[in-house]
Structure formats: structure tokens, C-alpha cells
């Protein structure tokens, strides 16, 4: 057991089953002290289950867990916390209407005697932590007013506040900008230098190789391979994750581009975006790039009738239309896949079939009659086309993985047969395999003569898939790049260029 001093956390032969699924199969995993161990794998590979076992949310069926060489049975998250384990979730867990200090101290308040919270101690502790970590927030800020990246920092602060030395981060960069990613990585470096060990779940290759000391690849509940980061390359990792070779990540092909489908002129929503002009042709994939807060999503929300706009014109197929509601947008052949699929995409407790049929109920229920078979067949063939992995069509959507939920939402719109499809961050939080499937679907759709608008924060994706890319900065359009002008540098220049 002598060598165990270098091993902070060890899992041996962990298995876990859920009704009908073996989520983890004989998984062993070692986290070396003071290192970052990246866990990668497609959605449904078992990463989250493994992390939830470490955090005491699930109980393992078989296998042992060792912390500092000591065998432990982790009862619940509180027990995990006492063992020095902290988890920073993909969906951040905080109370938006409480202040920073209240969120930090939530659950372990400094007390005055038995009954009362010692607010002075709360303030003092928070100030000390903020200072120690070099974070510029006021302790009485309400978390609602902060953005995702700030809150992430505060989550880390919370972990530090109870001296966690095993910190698990579940896809921490899925909602933050590249600058914020750098800040996060600096923080991780600091934590490591203090002797903390990090488990980092991600499928973004560039960042994996930037921060990993060790990499473990999971697939279908099995550990495929574990390597030191220097011993393996990106291509191999992807292939191990997917379990097959991916020839071309961006399956872009020449498609005939013809008449104009959509033209937006002078679109303005006071205080949000101003004078937005763009157009999209049949068969085109048009990208929207920009930093967070550039207003891209807001423009799309107005175009789709989710928000109002103050002025400007929208023309579909050369005819000016007024879009006041989602129904208007759908009538005009516009569909939108939202960036926040949990909030705007799925109805979690409804089945796959019910979710997919949702936007086309008027197709399947006509004149008071439900064409059940028609609906079932349409949904099934769409699921097959989209390769939605689900046990049955009756399965409730919440139990599917993120990538499959995204495919369900896409399928919902495909059943509707829109002419113009707006995809807002279509590949956020989904794995490499599902990503390339979504790219292929995009190509199939434009081949059928549809038009696609993609809003994305992943530049390689925009550059790989788009015919043209519009770039926005703080509510203004700063430029448009043709296919041959597209490069990361060119886009970034426009993305930080301020108007006036």
C-alpha cells in the first residue's frame, strides 16, 4: 500500500446497473494527487454515473472506493464533502435570489451559539475567501445578476471553503467564453499547486489536451483506456470514444444555392440589438459568430417570435411578414432549436413520441380526429433517420442522454418540415459522435433545399460547416465573411470590433 500515498482517489471494479441498463461495468480509475484527470466519453458512456457514485448520490452495486488509501463507503453528498470531495455540476446548483455569501455558507452556516447565524462571521469568511482567490465580487451580490462563468468561480470558491481536495468538474466550459475558459484553467492550475486533485469531464479535445495530466476514456460503461496525456493524441482519443473511425468531422459538400429565402433589414430591439441586416438563400448554411452577449440568440428569438422586436422588416421568400408569435414564425416555415434544450426544447415527462409530435399536432389531429398510426409512423421514421437512441417511443424524454434529447428536438422540427431552420448552439454539451451526426443531418437538409442559420460559439464548427458567417458584437453587426475569407482570426477580429 506504500505507493498509495501518490493516489488520492481510487475506484476498483465499480459496477452499477439501472433497470434495463448496465451503466458501469467493472470500472477502475485512479486519481493521482495534485493532478488533473480528464474523463472523456460520449454521452451515455457512464461518466456522470461514475461521478455521482464518487459524490455519494448513487450507490455502487459492486466495487470499492479508496480515499488516501483508506477504503470508504460514501453514503451521501454530505459524507462525500466530509471526505473532501466537491462536485461542480454541469447545471450549476445555486440559489439565484440569495447573495454570494449566503450561497457560499448555505448548509454550513457559522453559528452564534446554537440558534442564530453569525452574520459577521459569514461576511468575514466570504471576504477572506474572495481575497484569497483573487475574485472581484461583493459578498452581497445576488447571484442572479452574475453570469455563468462568475457563478462557476463561486462554485469553486464554495468547494475551497470546505477544503475540498478532490474537485469534480462536469463539463465546466459548456457555457462560457474562451476568455473565461482561460480564467477557469488558471484557477485549476492554482488548485493543483495547492495539492488538490481534479477530475475533469469534457469532450472538447483542445481543452482536454491543454489541462490533462491523465486521460481516461469511457465507452458504454467500460474503461477503454487510461493514458498520460503525453502518450496519446487527439485523433486516437476521439476514435476510442466513438469506437469507430471518423473520417471527416465536417461533412461539408457543395449544394446548389438558389433564391433568397429570408431577408432581415434593420431589425432592432431597443437595448438588445440594432439595425441587423442579413439574408439567407435556399441551400445555404449561414453562421452567426460573436462573443457571449453579442445578441445573436436575441436576434434569433425575435425572428422566431419568442421575443418582440421594435422595428425593421422580415421578408420570407420575398414577401414581407410580421412575426409576433411562435405561431407566426411556424406559419412562415421558420423553426428554431434553442440553445437551452431543457428549458425551451423538451417536455421531460412526456414520451419521445409526444415530444416529437408536439410542433405538428395539427398535422396528426385534423378535424377532431387523431391519426394515431400516421403520427406513430412519422415519428418512428424520423427517429430512425435521426438515429435517436431510445428503448421505445414511449420512453420519457428525460431519461435520454443529452445528444439524444437534442436529436428528439431536431426530429420535432423535421416533422414540421420547415424551410428555414435556426440552430442555436446545436452541438453544445453533446458528444463527438452525435455532433458529426448533426452535421450530416444539416447537410441532408440543405440538399433538400432548406436553409439553415447556425448560431455557435465553436468557431471550427462555423468555419467547417457554413457558406457565410455574420459576426456580431454587443448588439451590432460588425461584418460578414464569405467562405473563402473564413478563419478563426478573421472572425475574432470582427467579434471584438466595436461599432462607433
Amino acid at each position, binding site marked *: 500500500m506504500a505507493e498509495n500515498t501518490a493516489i488520492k482517489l481510487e475506484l476498483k471494479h465499480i459496477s452499477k446497473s439501472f433497470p434495463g441498463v448496465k451503466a458501469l461495468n467493472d470500472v477502475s480509475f485512479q486519481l493521482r494527487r495534485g493532478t488533473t484527470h480528464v474523463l472523456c466519453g460520449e454521452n451515455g458512456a457512464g461518466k456522470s454515473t461514475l461521478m455521482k457514485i464518487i459524490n455519494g448520490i448513487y450507490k455502487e452495486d459492486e466495487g470499492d472506493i479508496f480515499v488516501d488509501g483508506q477504503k470508504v463507503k460514501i453514503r451521501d453528498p454530505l459524507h462525500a464533502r466530509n471526505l473532501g470531495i466537491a462536485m461542480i455540476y454541469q447545471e450549476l446548483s445555486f440559489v439565484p435570489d440569495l447573495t454570494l455569501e449566503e450561497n457560499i455558507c448555505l448548509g454550513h452556516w457559522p453559528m452564534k451559539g446554537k440558534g442564530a447565524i453569525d452574520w459577521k462571521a459569514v461576511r468575514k469568511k466570504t471576504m477572506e475567501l474572495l481575497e484569497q482567490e483573487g475574485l472581484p465580487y461583493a459578498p452581497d451580490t445576488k447571484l442572479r445578476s452574475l453570469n455563468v462563468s462568475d457563478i462557476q468561480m463561486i462554485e469553486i470558491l464554495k468547494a475551497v471553503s470546505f477544503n475540498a481536495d478532490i474537485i469534480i468538474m462536469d463539463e465546466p466550459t459548456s457555457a462560457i467564453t474562451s476568455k473565461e475558459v482561460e480564467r477557469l484553467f488558471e484557477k485549476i492550475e492554482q488548485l493543483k499547486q495547492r495539492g488538490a486533485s481534479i477530475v475533469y469531464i469534457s469532450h472538447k479535445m483542445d481543452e482536454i489536451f491543454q489541462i490533462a495530466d491523465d486521460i481516461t476514456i469511457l465507452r458504454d460503461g467500460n474503461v477503454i483506456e487510461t493514458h498520460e496525456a503525453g502518450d496519446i493524441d487527439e485523433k486516437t482519443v476521439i476514435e476510442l470514444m466513438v469506437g469507430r473511425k471518423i473520417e471527416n468531422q465536417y461533412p461539408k459538400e457543395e449544394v446548389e444555392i438558389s433564391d433568397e429565402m429570408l431577408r432581415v433589414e434593420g431589425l432592432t430591439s431597443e437595448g438588445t440589438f440594432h439595425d441587423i441586416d442579413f439574408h439567407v438563400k435556399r441551400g445555404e448554411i449561414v453562421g452567426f459568430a460573436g462573443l457571449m452577449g453579442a445578441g445573436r440568440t436575441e436576434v434569433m428569438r425575435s425572428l422566431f417570435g419568442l421575443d418582440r422586436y421594435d422595428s425593421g422588416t422580415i421578408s420570407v421568400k420575398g414577401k414581407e411578414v410580421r412575426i409576433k408569435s411562435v405561431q407566426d414564425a411556424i406559419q412562415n416555415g421558420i423553426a428554431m432549436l434553442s440553445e437551452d434544450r431543457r428549458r*425551451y426544447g423538451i*417536455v421531460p415527462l412526456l414520451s419521445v413520441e409526444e415530444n416529437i409530435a408536439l410542433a405538428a399536432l395539427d398535422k396528426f389531429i385534423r378535424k377532431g380526429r387523431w391519426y394515431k398510426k400516421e403520427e406513430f409512423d412519422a415519428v418512428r421514421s424520423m427517429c430512425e433517420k435521426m438515429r435517436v437512441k431510445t428503448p421505445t417511443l414511449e420512453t420519457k424524454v428525460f431519461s435520454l442522454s443529452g445528444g439524444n434529447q437534442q436529436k428528439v428536438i431536431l426530429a420535432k422540427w423535421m416533422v414540421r418540415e420547415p424551410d428555414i431552420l435556426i440552430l442555436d448552439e446545436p452541438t453544445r454539451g453533446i458528444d463527438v459522435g452525435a455532433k458529426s451526426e448533426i452535421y450530416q443531418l444539416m447537410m441532408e437538409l440543405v440538399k433538400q433545399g432548406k436553409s439553415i442559420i447556425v448560431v455557435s460559439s465553436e468557431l471550427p464548427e462555423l468555419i467547417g460547416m457554413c457558406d457565410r458567417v455574420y459576426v456580431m458584437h454587443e448588439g451590432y453587426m460588425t461584418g460578414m465573411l464569405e467562405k473563402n475569407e473564413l478563419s478563426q482570426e478573421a472572425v475574432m477580429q470582427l467579434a471584438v470590433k466595436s461599432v462607433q
Partner: protein
Amino acid sequence: MEKQMTLNKGKKNFLSKYSLIFILVIFMIVCTFANENFLTSTNLINVFRQQSVVIMLALGEMILIIAGLLDLSCGSVVAFAGVVSVLAYKSIPNLFVGFAVAIGVALAINALNGLMVTKFKTPPFIATLATQAIARGAALYITGGQNVYEIGDYNAVGQGSFGPIPIPVIIMLIALAVMIYVMRYTRFGRSTYAVGGNEEAANASGIKVNAVKMKAYLVNGILVGVAALVFMSRVNGGLPNGAKDYEFDALTATIIGGTSFTGGVGNPIGTLLGALIVGFLGNIMNLMSVDSYIQQIVRGAIIAFAVIIDIYSKDRQTSKSNK
């Protein structure tokens, strides 16, 4: 995996789908042994006749809760719509007039509920608490607080039978059949589940959320109106103080029937079974002469218990998910 996509529900769903029937049957067996008067046709028919009103109210409550709404006003609206209908019948003795007036009044109050909830964004709990007071007050005001008697053939609906089957039961069964159809086979019904399950996603899918909510209140209005007439007709008078706490029974029945308080889940058959369980429970307590105060305590405990079960089972469901 695509090949496995079939219409089969699987064993687990089968159990949870029919668990209410098992509970009802077991409960009835226990009751049969507990009291010899329980399993008699007179008693069972009586329970059905009594519960018909509650079942109709519960069906209204169900559609609202599925849509993420609520109605605390239905008991009072039964009283208000009922007495207005009785008074109208006394001047124009025609049952169609009676029905039209009862449904009209209940629809009006529920349109108000719907308006407050959709247009003014009042929480349903508060909006319908307000109309609860308004409707009860109005019922007492127009009758001067006195019961209205000598209602002639108005009582034919509530007290009559068609063969062995009481007319209220027939009306209730028609309402049930209509609701099964509405919830499963209409665009409105399907949209209701989506609105309650995730309002923002429903909106982003092109569903007119406010229209769905308004319609849910109007459907509730029709059910409450019919229930009002049946109630007054059964008790043979216009009772401005009648149907007190019926919203409580309707809610209990709905929750026991598997409608989830968080919205998006529920079905009419479950609601029927829930209402029968509540009805038989009240019945057996009466037969065994349980003190009426104790009965009230039991009813309170039951609804708390039902909600706990609902939340627990939902917890288990969702924690099973993120694999």
C-alpha cells in the same frame, strides 16, 4: 435499438398503470370484512351517486393541474351556479334552462379565473381563492342566506335512475368519456400536457400557452356547471352553503388518482379511481360511525400522504435518469 421501438409499455408501466385498481380492490375487500353493510348494492349505488359530483369536479381539477394550474373555487361555484340555476328553473321550469344557467354561471366564473391567470399573471392559487370567496358570497347574497326549496321536477336529475343506474352516474360517465377523448385525442388535450410539463418548451413549439390555459378553465367551468345542477338536484333544493370543501375532495381524488402536482402528468381513469377510493373511504367511516371530526383529520392526512407518494415516485423516476 430502433427495432425495439414498439407500442409495448413494458412490465413496470403495467404495474404502475394498474396499481390504483389493485389499491381500490384491496381496499374494498378490507371494507367488506370490516362492515357487512358495505358490499350491498344499495350502499355501492349510493356511493356512486354521491361521488358523481366529486368525480366531475375532480376531472376539472385534473385538467387544470395537468396544465400546471389549480381551482380552489369549484365548491363555491357549485353553490353559486346551483342556486342561480334553481332560481331560474323556478321561473322557467325547463331542465335545459336549468343546465344552461348552471353551466353559464360556472363558465363565467372560470373565464374570470382564466383571465386572471393568463392576462394578469395571478398565481392560480390566489386567483381561485378569490373567486371561491366571490362565488360563495354571491350565492349567499342572492338567496339571502336561505335555502331555496320547492324546486319541483328539478330533482329528477339527481334522484332519478335509469334502470338500476342513477342518472348522476350516467352523467358522470358521459363526462368521463368526453374527458378521456379530450385528453388523449385532441390537440387541446395533448397541448395541456405539454404546457404543464414545460411551459416554455410548449410555447417554443408553437403552442398558444395562454389559450390552452384559458380553455382548461373553460372546460373546468362546464364540468363544474353540470356538477352544480346534479348536486342541487340530488339534495332537492338550492343550498347556498352546499358543496363546502368539495374542492378539497376533488383535489384529494385527483392527486390520489396519479395527477402530479408539478403538472404534465395525469389521466381521467386515474382520477375516477382516485375519487372512488376517497368515496369509499368516507363511506366506510360513516358505516363504522367514525366521529366526523376524526374523519376530517383522516381526509387531511390522506391528501398529505398522496402528495408525498407523488413526489417520492417522481424523485425515483428522475434520479433513475441521468446515467
